[in-house]
C-alpha cells in the first residue's frame, strides 16, 4: 500500500509567520542568509547579471544561424547538440545535456515541461512566464494546435506536431526552418531572424526585410 509512509517528506512547515508580500519575504530571507554568512550579496548580483546580460536567446540564435549556414555544423548539432553548442561557448546549468530537434516541412517540434519548467538556460536564458504558466503546461501535450493558434501559428493538418515534454535533464532546442529568401545572409544576419519562440516551437523565425 502507498499509505501513510514518507511522513518526513510531507509538507509540514508553517509559513504563516513570514511576510505575505513576496518582496518583503525575499528581502527578509536574503538579509538573514547574508548575516548568517551563507550568502555573499555580490554573488547574487553576479548571478542576476549573468542571466540579464550574458545568457539568453541570442546564444541559441547563433547556434541556429550556424546550423543554417554550415551543413557540417548542422549535422553535428543534430547528432550531439551538447558538444556542438559547447563549441560555441554555451554550456552549464540547465543545459548540461541538450538535444536539437529540427523542424521540416513534415514535422513541427515544440517543447514544454508539464511537471515544472525545464528549459535550456545556456541557449535560451530564463524561461518566459507563459512557458511556466499552468495554461501552457496543461494544454500543449493535449491540444498543441490550439496553443499554436494562440501564438498565431496555424499548421497544415498533415504536419506532425511533435511535442517534447522535458521530463529529464535533457533539454530540447528547436531548430526552426530557415526562411526562404535568406540565401545571401551571413550568420550574424541570420541570427537576427531567430526568435526565442521559434526555438521553443511556439513561433517562426522572422522573415528578412
Amino acid at each position, binding site marked *: 500500500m502507498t499509505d501513510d509512509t*514518507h511522513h518526513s517528506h510531507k509538507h509540514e512547515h508553517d509559513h504563516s509567520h513570514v511576510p505575505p508580500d513576496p518582496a518583503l519575504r525575499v528581502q527578509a530571507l536574503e538579509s538573514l542568509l547574508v548575516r548568517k554568512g*551563507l550568502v555573499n550579496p*555580490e*554573488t547574487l*548580483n553576479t548571478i*542576476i547579471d549573468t542571466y540579464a546580460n550574458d545568457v539568453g536567446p541570442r546564444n541559441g540564435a547563433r547556434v541556429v544561424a550556424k546550423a543554417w549556414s554550415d551543413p557540417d555544423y548542422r549535422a553535428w548539432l543534430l547528432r550531439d547538440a551538447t558538444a556542438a553548442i559547447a563549441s560555441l561557448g554555451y554550456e552549464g*546549468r540547465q543545459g*548540461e545535456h541538450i538535444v536539437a530537434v529540427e523542424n521540416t516541412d513534415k514535422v513541427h517540434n515544440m517543447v514544454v515541461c508539464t511537471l515544472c519548467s525545464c528549459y535550456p538556460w545556456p541557449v535560451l536564458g530564463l524561461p518566459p512566464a507563459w512557458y511556466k504558466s499552468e495554461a501552457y503546461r496543461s494544454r500543449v*501535450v493535449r491540444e498543441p494546435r490550439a496553443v499554436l493558434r494562440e501564438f498565431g501559428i496555424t499548421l497544415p493538418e498533415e504536419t506532425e506536431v511533435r*511535442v517534447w515534454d522535458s521530463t529529464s535533464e535533457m533539454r530540447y532546442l528547436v531548430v526552426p526552418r530557415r526562411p526562404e529568401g535568406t540565401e545571401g545572409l551571413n550568420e550574424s544576419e541570420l541570427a537576427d531572424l531567430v526568435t526565442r519562440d521559434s526555438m521553443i516551437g511556439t513561433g517562426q523565425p522572422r522573415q528578412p526585410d
Partner: protein
Amino acid sequence: MNGIHDMGGMHGFGPVPIEENEPLFHADWEARAMALTVVMASWKRWNIDASRYARERIPPREYLNSTYYERWIHALTDQMLEAGLITEQELRTGEPVGGPPNGKAPLDPDGARAMLRRGGPSRRQVDAPPRFRPGDAVRTGNRHPEHHTRLPRYARGKLGEVVLHHGAHVLPDTNAIFQGEQPEHLYAVRFAARELWGPDASPRDTVTLDLWESYLEAR
C-alpha cells in the same frame, strides 16, 4: 507524486498568458529569489531533484495561489529548514544564530560563474547494457508513488516507441529523497497523441517524453 504540479492534460486554466515585450523579471524580488535559490545550492545539502520535489510538496491550493518565484522561495525555505541551514526561530525573528556550516565562506562571484558554467550533469556510467533501443515498443508502468517521479499521470500505462537512448542518468525518484543516484538508462519515448488522449486527438501528432528504464516494460 500525483500532485497539482502534474498538470499535463488538465482543462480549465484558460488561454496561454502571452505577454509582449516581457521583462526578464517582473519585480526585483524575483531576480533575488532566483539568485538565492541558485546560490544556496552551492552548500550541496540537496540536489535538483530534491528541489523539484520540494516545490511539488507545496499544497495544491497554495501552489496555485503562488507565482512562479514564490514557489521557489517557499521550497527553498523548506529545504534550508530541513537541511538545518536555518532554523524556524531564525526565520521568525530574522536574527541569525551561529554561522555557516564548518565556518566556510559563502560562494563568491567567481565561484558562482564557475558553478553556472559547470552545471550539474546527470549522465553516469553504468555497467548494465541498455534494455531497449530505438524502435522498440514499450509500455509505461502504471505507478502512483507518493514520492517524486518524472512519469506524468497522462503517460502512465501507455504504449510508445523508443526513439532515442540518452545513456544512463541519475534516477530522480530516489535522488529526490536522498536514497542515492541509482542511475538508469534513459530513453526518449514517443507516444501517438491518440494513445494518450483518445480518438479526438490528431492522428499525426505525437508527444515524446524522457523516461527511465524502470518506468518501462517491454511490450
